[in-house]
């Protein structure tokens, strides 16, 4: 078991092993997504307050969860890469950044679209949405910094520090934005999570959440393989791999 993880840390073995996992993860993701969509769009009943527009929640909420989850994973992988100098951890960190930013963007857009029929405006400075917006900027900062530094290893280490600073700040930012929001509270209350949610609505939510996690797993491995190939392009095993590709 330890040997397995040891092997995994080697870029060459990671490339080979992850290549085998990706199709299965993708298939599982597809399965959960179809199940989630079926449950969410067809089975779940119409909300008596929000009508059918609440179904946007099945995209919005899992996307928001992923945006936070991925940032924490990115920061964690960054720390591991920084402290233990494990190349693979660095690769996983930067591979996660674009995906996390995509989910944040998705959460913002669906939140905005959901808000229009609910509150009549395309954007409201709701605490959660505002926090998501700042999170998007944090992601973009990581991506921008990574692209700005020429050496990949230095870039990975610099973004690890940035992600770490970000992850420490996220609870602070979230708390301060929530507080700020209560100061200027409008008469509306956020319906983004109801206090007690109907089981028939909870199931599709959880199915989509799992589907998104599997999606992240699939895509992060795909990105990581490309990054590994790029970093290791001058090694023997890559030359061998490329010669077989032609």
């Amino acid at each position: 078991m330890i040997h397995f993880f040891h092997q995994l840390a080697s870029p060459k073995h990671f490339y080979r092993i992850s290549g085998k996992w990706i199709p299965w993860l993708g298939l599982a993701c597809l399965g959960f997504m179809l199940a989630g969509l079926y449950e969410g769009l067809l089975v779940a009943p119409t909300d008596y307050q929000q009508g059918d527009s609440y179904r946007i929640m099945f995209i919005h909420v899992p996307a928001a969860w992923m945006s936070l989850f991925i940032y924490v994973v990115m920061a964690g992988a960054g720390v591991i890469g920084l402290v233990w100098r494990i190349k693979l951890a660095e690769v996983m960190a930067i591979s996660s950044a674009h995906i996390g930013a995509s989910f944040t963007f998705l959460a913002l857009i669906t939140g905005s679209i959901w808000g229009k029929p609910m509150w009549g405006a395309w954007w409201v400075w709701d605490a959660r949405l505002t926090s998501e917006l700042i999170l998007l900027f944090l992601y973009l900062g990581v991506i921008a910094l990574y692209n700005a530094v020429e050496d990949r290893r230095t870039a990975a280490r610099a973004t690890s520090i940035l992600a770490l600073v970000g992850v420490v700040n996220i609870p602070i930012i979230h708390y301060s934005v929530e507080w700020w929001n209560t100061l200027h509270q409008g008469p509306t209350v956020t319906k983004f999570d109801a206090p007690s949610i109907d089981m028939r609505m909870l199931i599709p939510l959880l199915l989509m959440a799992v589907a998104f996690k599997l999606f992240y797993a699939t895509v992060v491995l795909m990105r990581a393989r490309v990054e590994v190939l790029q970093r290791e392009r001058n090694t023997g095993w890559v030359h061998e791999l490329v010669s077989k590709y032609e």
Partner: protein
Amino acid sequence: MKPATLPQAFAILLRRDLTLAYRRRSEMINPLLFFVLVTAMFPLGIGADPALLRDIGPGIIWVAALLASLLSLETVFRSDFDDGSLEQLLLSPHPLSILMIAKVLAHWLVTGLPLLIVAPLLSVLLNLSHEAMRTLLITLALGTPVLSLIGAIGVALTVGLRKGGTILSLLVLPLYVPVLIFAASAVANSDAGLPVSAHLSLLAALLVLATSLSPAATAASLRISMS
């Protein structure tokens, strides 16, 4: 000649940075002028209704302070990087994080403290009450060091980059949000006669957090940038 102890090294670094800043004092004044100018732009942009200005004054002044702070951040490491003394600093036997405190302190004395001196003028321009002005000064006193401390991490990460200045704002502004929120709402509350002890305590907490964590992060970032 005996090698300097840590307190001596700290004092030497502080004095050096202050002296260098003094020699370039015309440069140092720019962020301050920016602070005043930006604040003055708002009445021109949105109208001079005293009630309106009083309402949004705290927010305007604090956003202007953020921007002025951002503008001045480049100077923390720029000249040292250019003439090679930054590399020398990294070779010092003293813990780099402590030396970072010296650098950030010097930076704050030169760029943050002047904002406090000018702030009363700005409160008058935006029609803030005396209470609000007092709170403004306290929030600036607590908040601008946090801006310098957090900003230093951003500068340390971007000092080696060719176009580091452009992404500096992207890196640093999201991290500035809590300071902005607590400080601006404190001043607004003060203007309305409401208690501000919670806001100020939170700002003080942020200051303590930043002082304890950011020097180490700045030092680590510097080592990475200069590697």
